[in-house]
């Protein structure tokens, strides 16, 4: 039986005349890394805020570790760690002091967890440096450290790699993978850096204007992110006619700049090139390509992707 850490049912949130969330049915399987994708204002943060108890839904329910009612739902929140809309820190405190304040808040016995957590996020040895003097990347790490205090089973991270340098991005990615694979922590992560999400997430949810458009696994996404041959010839119109008649397919697109995207023949590029050459066409560019998460996301929300 599939175990879910989070399920929302018909979750809606209305702000005066604006619908921030519209009947969202989202589910996150235990052990997964759920990449939550959406534009600014799509409803990602609103949903995360409702899950975390910062806001209440207008209608619908949240089920966290199978608990959906009042006190039990709130108790279930003790099993999650959150970083919502950036790291929330006491600027006048050091990293250790920030963690100590949160350790006491969460009622975690013993101070050993502080050094252990700081080490995990690479912030050991920051000494007396106040959080206000940290770089953005260090603040992000400290925010993640706070979320990790108390060994949560479910981690909710809203834009955790914002402001990190390339090395920092890789380190956070590796950290999250480690937390997921070694400690079995389920992770909900929202990020604008879709290429990064694609390297990390095992499941995806696409939200747009308050509607959850689609939920899919990494395998399903990879299948949907179609592979194609990227072809440039001296006569695109003739090439289109040749492809349609000789390859018996209409699974191609002729782009305004004359480039052709031919789907379905990635494994047999030789056949395609020989047919084109035999018909007297000059091939200027010929390469197998794949649609990435960004392109797929843009396609789903009906936007134009300039890759």
């Amino acid at each position, binding site marked *: 039986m599939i175990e879910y850490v989070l399920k929302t049912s018909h979750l809606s949130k209305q702000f005066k005349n604006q619908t921030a969330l519209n009947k969202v049915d989202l589910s996150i399987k235990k052990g997964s890394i759920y990449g939550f994708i959406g534009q600014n204002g799509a409803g990602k943060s609103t949903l995360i*805020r409702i899950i*975390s*108890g*910062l*806001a*209440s839904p207008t209608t619908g329910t949240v089920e966290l570790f199978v608990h959906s009612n009042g*006190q039990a739902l*709130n*108790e*279930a*929140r*003790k*099993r*999650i760690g*959150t970083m*919502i*809309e*950036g*790291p*929330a*820190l*006491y*600027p*006048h*405190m050091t990293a250790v*002091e920030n963690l*100590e*304040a*949160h350790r*006491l*808040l*969460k*009622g975690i016995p013993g101070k050993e967890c502080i050094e252990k957590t700081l080490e995990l996020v690479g912030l050991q040895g920051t000494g007396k440096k106040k959080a206000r003097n940290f770089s953005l990347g260090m603040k992000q790490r400290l925010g993640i450290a*706070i979320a990790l205090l108390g060994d949560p089973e479910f981690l909710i991270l809203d834009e955790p790699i914002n402001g990190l340098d390339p090395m920092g991005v890789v380190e956070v990615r590796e950290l999250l993978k480690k937390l997921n694979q070694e400690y079995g922590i389920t992770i909900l992560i929202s990020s604008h850096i879709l290429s990064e999400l694609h390297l990390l997430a095992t499941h995806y949810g696409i939200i747009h204007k308050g509607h959850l458009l689609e939920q899919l696994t990494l395998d399903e996404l990879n299948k949907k992110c179609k592979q194609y041959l990227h072809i440039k010839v001296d006569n695109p119109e003739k090439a289109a006619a040749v492809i349609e008649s000789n390859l018996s397919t209409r699974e191609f697109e002729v782009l305004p700049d004359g480039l052709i995207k031919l789907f379905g023949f990635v494994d047999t590029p030789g056949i395609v090139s020989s047919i084109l050459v035999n018909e007297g066409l000059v091939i200027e560019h010929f390469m197998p390509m794949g649609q990435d998460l960004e392109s797929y996301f843009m396609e789903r929300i009906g936007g134009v992707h300039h890759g």
Partner: protein
Amino acid sequence: MGNLIKSEWYKLKKDRSFWLLTFLLVITSIGYPLLIVMDEATLAVKVNDFYQYSVLGGNNYVIKLVPCILAGFFISSEYSNGTMKNMVASGNSRIQLYFAKLIIFSVGTMVISLILPLLMTGASAVYFSFYEMPDLGYFLQTIWLTALYGAAFASIMALFATLLADSGKAIGFMLIFFILFDSVLYSVANNISMFEPVFNYSVFKLLLEIVNVSALSSGEMTKMIVVPVVTFIVFGLLGSILYKKKEIK
């Protein structure tokens, strides 16, 4: 609840505004009577008179105004730092979170409220050579009433700090409110009779009566105790209801 109080206590101990305000009040407590000594003959000032008119009189402003600054930094800044999100998402009951905050803020306010009565009186006793000291019973009564009224005012400030959720706005609004409100309430009570009991039974008016505690009847003394206790409970409950319903941004 115990862990929440420990966490709030830890944060109060680390709050720089709390220590700065305490430091300034300590300096004032030691420095002000020294200025009087330098200005007048030491034996001319009775410690009891100084305690009643200068210390308690001046402390009325300290109780009403100085903790507003602490409320801005200790409560409202939790919203602007975003740390309130961590608190609420921790899975603790919002009512408990609010009361833990209120209790520790009240302790901070009581500390601030007692610096002048304790330290300034102590300093003045030394400077004035212990001339005509206040009666110990009277002194202790005023001390614990000061602490009680400090807590009552803290509950009102905590409500405003939660409502405004921005340290700058909260401090500005509360300073103006606490400077003007008793005068406004006094004028309203003088002109509209139905507001008279509101003024008479308010902590704003009764705070000024602490200095006369030795002359109060037992009925008036009961009123002096019950009103701040009820104020603390009522504003504590109102604040906790507001906090429970508040969307944390």
